[in-house]
């Protein structure tokens, strides 16, 4: 058993173990690693935003192409700093309004297209595909009923009683079976990640396994 001689590998290994130490309990080592992690990654984020967002979208157009239109959003962005001016604090609502208006405007129709129309198409298509013979057809119908019942669970403006109660509870059964399956299906993926870490520790840091 030998150890790595690369100091960076040691840093990586010690930080990995510090994070894992949280599993036992919150402790000084984890606390340090966590604070460092938050700081380093926030700083990384600043560099990314500067290099990939502000330079190509603001500084390059302004300084290279002399496109002065970009000053408008720059001023809108600067309005955020009126937060620290007590009487003009409301000015930050203007850039916020821009972001909210744009964000919601960009989402409304695409959501209807992707989450509703596209889903309707797949649902109808799968329920009636009839390829692969008898059983597939039956399962197609079962899945279709499942979609309808699940949807009925989300009725809010009516009390769940009578037929709605029946369909909503069937919906909940489908949901629970689906959730259990998703959970069970994810275990392997997560364990694989842990294996990756353990392999790093045992091959690159301590040379136990080849």
């Amino acid at each position, binding site marked *: 058993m030998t150890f790595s001689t690369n100091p960076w590998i040691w840093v990586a290994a010690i930080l990995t173990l510090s994070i894992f130490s949280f599993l036992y309990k919150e402790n000084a080592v984890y606390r340090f690693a966590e604070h460092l992690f938050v*700081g380093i990654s926030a700083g990384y984020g600043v560099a990314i935003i500067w290099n990939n967002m502000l330079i190509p979208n603001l500084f390059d157009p302004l300084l290279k192409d002399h496109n002065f239109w970009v000053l408008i959003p720059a001023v809108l962005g600067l309005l955020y700093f009126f937060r620290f001016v007590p009487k003009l604090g409301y000015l930050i609502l203007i850039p*916020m309004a821009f972001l909210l208006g744009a964000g*919601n405007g960009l989402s409304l129709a695409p959501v209807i297209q992707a989450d509703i129309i596209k889903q309707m198409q797949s649902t109808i298509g799968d329920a009636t595909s009839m390829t692969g013979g008898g059983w597939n057809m039956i399962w197609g119908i079962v899945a279709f009923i499942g979609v309808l019942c699940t949807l009925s669970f*989300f009725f809010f403006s009516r009390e769940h009683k009578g037929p709605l109660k029946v369909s909503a509870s069937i919906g909940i059964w489908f949901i629970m079976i689906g959730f259990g399956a998703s959970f069970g299906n994810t275990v392997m993926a997560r364990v694989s990640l842990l294996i990756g870490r353990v392999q790093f520790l045992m091959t690159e840091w301590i040379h136990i396994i080849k």
Partner: protein
Amino acid sequence: MRQKIPGLLLVLFWASLCLALPAQQIPVTAEPAAAAIAPVQAVKAFDTPNDKGRSITVTWQASSDEAKGLVAGYEVQRSESSQEGFADIGYVPFGFSSYTDQELPANGKDYYYRVRAEGLKGEEAYSQVSGAAQAREQWFNTMRANALFGTVLFILIVIYFISKAKKGHHLFIRKIAGLAAVDEAVGRATEMGRPILFVPGIASISDIPTIAALNILAEVSKRTAEYDTPIIVPNRDPVVYTVAQEIVKESYNQIGRPDAFNHDSVFYLTDNQMGFASGVDGIIAREKPATNFFLGYFAAEALIIAETGATTGAIQIAGTDQVTQLPFFITACDYTLMGEELYAASAYLSRQPMLLGTLKGQDWSKALIGLLMVVGVVLSFINPALRTFILKLLEVG
């Protein structure tokens, strides 16, 4: 078929960008053409549909030698005259029978096209020249007609129920367990003298689950202001951070306790997903909040923070529209708002008539969707042609 064209065009566009260059760079071996190959037939040129203009689509029937495996590809040529001056504009490999000419010099001007089939051994064959075609800019994307219909219908339904609600119709809303527990959860924190943690997800403000979470934050922070219970709101997105801070501040103003608002209670951690998770874990372990709210958009960190919260014995109320993460919230939290329940929350908590009206509109839309799907399935079983038609109606582009 019409429906598939734009998708195909997109593909072709990228392919042509990529293909055009090497096609011209690689020197054609100077071997004389061994034998002639058949030219392509029926070359048609027309304005590319549903685009911003300056683009013409060319289609043709493959060379009859393509099936024999003799064709390498097709070079598309353009000219402003039907007689002469044709220049190469793009190359597509065999198997393709259309090409989109992008970035034309002008809209509304006549252009002519022809296609040169190229054989594997360097043979060439020119097609007939197409009819004149003009590029135009379109003002409506016909591929999105179904989405337009859906959007308009949905808006009308919602507005109808909002106006009805304004007139004071009583509107019922079923119990949503996770939301019924909010008051109890805030009360418990007050009794225990411990703070409340509210995580508004990890997405940006343009992701609608974040908006839903912030609407709930407004209601929750009003209650914490009332009971004078500290609230902790860590953020992953800088914009969401600014909005969340305003929301909490306003809630304290409304309750009449602006002095009790602590600026430092809403803060930014980092935009790194796991860095954020580690920070939230640290907060949960050290501050031991009595109640944790995890609402909004979550990804893999959902289970990390929810499971940490479960070990401290906090009451946990989670909610997300992310189907992949719901199973983990269900297992680790006391209450979970599933999918649309997250969006119903602000109506449920505030009981404002207009918000309840919207909810009613959602329910009617749901019923309509269910009905349309049943009709669609029945018709599809009756006649396969109807099935094709229905699926085409719902094709998105």
